[in-house]
């Protein structure tokens, strides 16, 4: 007779010393883990609740802010904790994001500063210096050196500053929008016309304008560095190619575009913020339709910015809120607002995509977390594993009614809530009317939501998809 019983020596399982970790053998047989799904659901529900409990999006404001509204914010693409902001009274401030204090503050222009950008470090002589370009309503573009000691003795914000000023370019018209080329020492300005400048010459190299009376915004592609997008006051978006010095495509929408941002990961895609409360995601290869429409705002979208990973989009709006969208979803995953924040004109992701910087009419530059419940402290492996596990669970059960309700719930200001309700009624009635029209009129075409905003494109796109009906007919005739 062969006999064997379970022989489990406690020496193998019980730690001998206090400092020793005890053995934790696993057995993944599902029979040993009853109620697997129910328990995971409970964990997901708890994680969702905790996420909302820990949601604290607002980190703080930068210094004491500006005296006038903040209408331009420029990221330093080479430096995680530097940021420039400019306000309506012509003052530029350069910030240290870690301490949220200013490195420098000086009056750069008479009147509004309309464009600001920090030029790439790789173009400077020893590759450690930083230069900043600003343009304003006073028909000048100024090139600044922004190293710490340059502005140490500037105390007066009332007179134009000359410390650190390297060069002034004089133009013939007020400028609107400014962007620097990623690899070449050239930059482009908007305004009455689009002009291409180089830092060596005081006159513009070329004039690129096509059609618009006034160009409100210009943006270089950061990957395909010679591609340039501009928005005009005639509701147009125009793309230029600097290699041929010519425009490549122009579309006209129903309302004006306020901001453009290129996707940092997918070079051919860009997002625009529109006056019609929506942001649109376009593919420059086929602009006959939007790839995605970001809805939810109840006033014009003033600024859009991609996270450095290209996964998320932040929008600033005239309705005094900031919203964050996943780039492949149509509705916002997050809304930020405070009591004192007025119309938001600028919103940017920080270069590590963990923070969002907003500039608003009330003159404050604010720092937000891009994930409201995330904390930036160093985490132990166990803590990180737990957070990752919770994240996965939340994702898995996100459609469950209770979890969806909790994760979507946000307190929004009553003004916005009311506006949302009114907007919904308006849109519903429009939709109803359109449906009724289509029911009675025979040839009324169906216009998808992604094409509705487009009035026209200059170069028509051919539909290269095979037309099924014709093919079938061919087969039949054969």
């Amino acid at each position, binding site marked *: *007779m*062969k*006999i*064997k*019983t*379970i*022989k*489990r*020596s*406690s020496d*193998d*399982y*019980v730690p001998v010393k206090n400092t020793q970790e*005890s*053995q*934790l*053998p*696993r*057995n*993944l*047989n*599902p*029979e*040993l*883990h*009853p*109620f*697997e*799904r*129910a*328990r995971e*659901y*409970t*964990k997901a529900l*708890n994680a969702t609740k905790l996420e909302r409990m820990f949601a604290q999006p607002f980190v703080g404001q930068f210094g004491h802010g500006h005296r006038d509204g903040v209408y331009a914010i420029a990221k330093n693409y080479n430096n995680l904790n530097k940021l420039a902001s400019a306000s309506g009274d012509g003052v530029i401030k350069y910030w240290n994001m870690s301490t949220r204090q200013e490195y420098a503050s000086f009056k750069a222009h008479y009147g509004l500063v309309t464009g600001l950008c920090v030029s790439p470090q790789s173009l400077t002589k020893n590759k450690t210096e930083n230069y900043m370009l600003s343009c304003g309503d006073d028909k000048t573009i100024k090139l600044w050196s922004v190293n710490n000691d340059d502005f140490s003795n500037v105390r007066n914000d009332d007179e134009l500053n000359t410390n650190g000023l390297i060069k002034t370019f004089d133009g013939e018209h007020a400028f609107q929008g400014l962007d620097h080329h990623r690899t070449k020492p050239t930059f482009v300005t908007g305004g009455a016309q689009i002009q291409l400048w180089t830092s060596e010459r005081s006159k513009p190299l070329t004039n690129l304008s096509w059609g618009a009376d006034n160009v409100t915004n210009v943006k270089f592609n950061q990957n395909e560095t010679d591609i340039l997008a501009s928005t005009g006051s005639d509701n147009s978006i125009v793309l230029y190619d600097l290699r041929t010095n010519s425009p490549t495509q122009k579309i006209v929408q129903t309302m004006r575009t306020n901001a453009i941002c290129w996707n940092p990961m997918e070079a051919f895609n860009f997002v625009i913020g529109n006056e019609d409360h929506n942001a649109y995601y376009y593919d420059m290869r086929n602009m006959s339709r939007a790839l995605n429409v970001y809805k939810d705002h109840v006033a014009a979208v003033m600024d859009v910015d991609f996270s450095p990973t290209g996964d998320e989009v932040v929008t600033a709006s005239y309705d005094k809120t900031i919203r964050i969208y996943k780039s*492949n979803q149509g509705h916002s995953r997050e809304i930020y607002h405070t009591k004192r924040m007025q119309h938001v004109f600028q919103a940017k992701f920080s270069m590590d995509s963990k923070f969002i910087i907003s500039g608003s009419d009330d003159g404050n530059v604010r720092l937000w977390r891009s994930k409201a419940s995330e904390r930036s402290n160093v985490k132990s492996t166990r803590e990180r594993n737990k957070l990752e596990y919770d994240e996965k669970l939340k994702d898995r*059960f996100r459609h*469950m009614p209770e979890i969806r309700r909790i994760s979507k719930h946000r307190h929004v200001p009553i003004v916005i809530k009311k506006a949302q309700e009114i907007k919904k009624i308006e849109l519903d009635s429009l939709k109803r009317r359109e449906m009724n029209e289509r029911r009675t009129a025979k040839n009324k075409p169906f216009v998808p939501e992604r094409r509705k905003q487009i009035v026209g494109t200059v170069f028509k796109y051919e539909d290269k998809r095979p037309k099924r009906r014709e093919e079938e007919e061919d087969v039949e005739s054969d």
Partner: protein
Amino acid sequence: MAPTEKRVRKTRDNQDRFERPGQFDKKERKRTKDRKLKANLKRLDKEYAQTVSDAAATDYLLPESSGYLEAEDEMEKTFKVRQSEIVGGVDVSTANKALDLKLNEFGPYYVNYSRTGTHMLLSGRKGHVASMDWRKGELRAELFLNETCHAATFLQSEQFFAVAQKKYTFIYDHEGVELHRLKQHIDVRHLEFLPYHYLLATAGETGWLKYQDVSTGALVSETRTKLGPTTAMTQNPWNAVMHLGHSNGTVTLWSPSMPDPLARILSARGPINSIAIDRSGYYMATTGKDKSLKIWDIRNFQELHSVENLPTPGTNVSISDTGLLAVSRGPHVTLWKDALKRGNAAKPCFGSMGGKSDRNTPYMSHLFAGNKVNNMKFVPFEDLLGIGHESGMTNLVIPGAGEANYDALEINPYETAKQRQEQEVRSLLDKLPADTITLDPNSLGMVDKTASSTRLSAKELSEITIGAEKQKKKNMDIPGVDVDTKSKNSGLRSFLRKKTRNVIDERKMRVQAQLDKEKALRQRKVKVQHNEISEDHKDLVGEALGRFS
């Protein structure tokens, strides 16, 4: 740079044990038009397949192997091996676990183990209750209650236990201090604790099934079974459904959120003595006073095996983690292997059956001479069967009864006090709501395809509801006159009886008139049959005077 290594996904032969039910059909995925959804589902399916394959791969790495008792030749029979031979044949540590407590005064004893298997709870019918760490031989609490004790169970850990006493049920802590008297649980004979829901379920002489939430102290639900005293009770560890046995031979399945049983199974022709369910929740075994032993597949409520003629009625039945079936009859304990399989060869039989090889002869058996088994429980994670009897308790060594490899993050027999405390907090956070107990524990998070709201379109649904109302309005639901039925069976009669509300309204009058008409027609038919009147007879007088009636 080395090319990124693609993980190889193997289909392993033990993989189906790790598959989860309710996976998405591949064909269905191909039918979906939404491309984003399609891509997402495809990725999910891939991840799932990878996970199952990986989990199956860990099976080879398990540190322990389960026990066995095997005959070396044809002549040897495993059921003839005595406990003394087994204890002599195994290693010392196992032999030490073959506990045999002689407690002659307060018996018969009811024995129960904690979920980790480290602690044993003894309760003697005459009021002796003891909680002990039986492996170390340390007594934790000992109580002499001076009243009848019927059952006892540990709660979430060995720190608390509940005892069903003469009238009330009490909760004690690890030192034996009385914490609660559950005054709503009266005349309890059976106690079960649902660890994931923190519910204490009780049933007994009153015929009520009551659930008490031991974390909040609230009485979650109480249902009247309407079937008299509950004779047996056990929980299905897979879905937390309570199985109750009754004196009319039915087994009813209960969930705290439902006032009626989820299912009724007629399993014996006499009272049910005992019920056991295996840990996968697939099989149920019952013994009845009618000397029957039945094994059910409770996924589809089909009988697998039925043994109708045990020599004496089976008093207790139990199923081990590895699927061994133990049945006790008076002083006898008999165990079968593979009794939960389909087919005639798996049907439990007694004796060697004349050497027929295709019969499931007992795996082991034991006799408590001059004694009687009161209850029995397999010890979790050990090759032991704890038996409570008239004169104490005995641990029988049953090789191959226990799960060899425990999962320390689920139930850890070697946990420290610190680990136990942390585990308790964690399990409280993950406590499942009582109303989620259903027959299929994986129904959570699924779309109910049988719900009428998804099965029927809105139009169909409204037609049904409006149609029913319309029918009522037009009195179309009143059955027609049927002369051929007997008056007792008349559809009109039962319809009238159903609608009885002691209100005489137009509708009721109409039904009554119909009934009268039916009666008259029936009487006329009888007269025709008896040739009292001709078939085309017209009662002219009645017709003429009918207007005055």
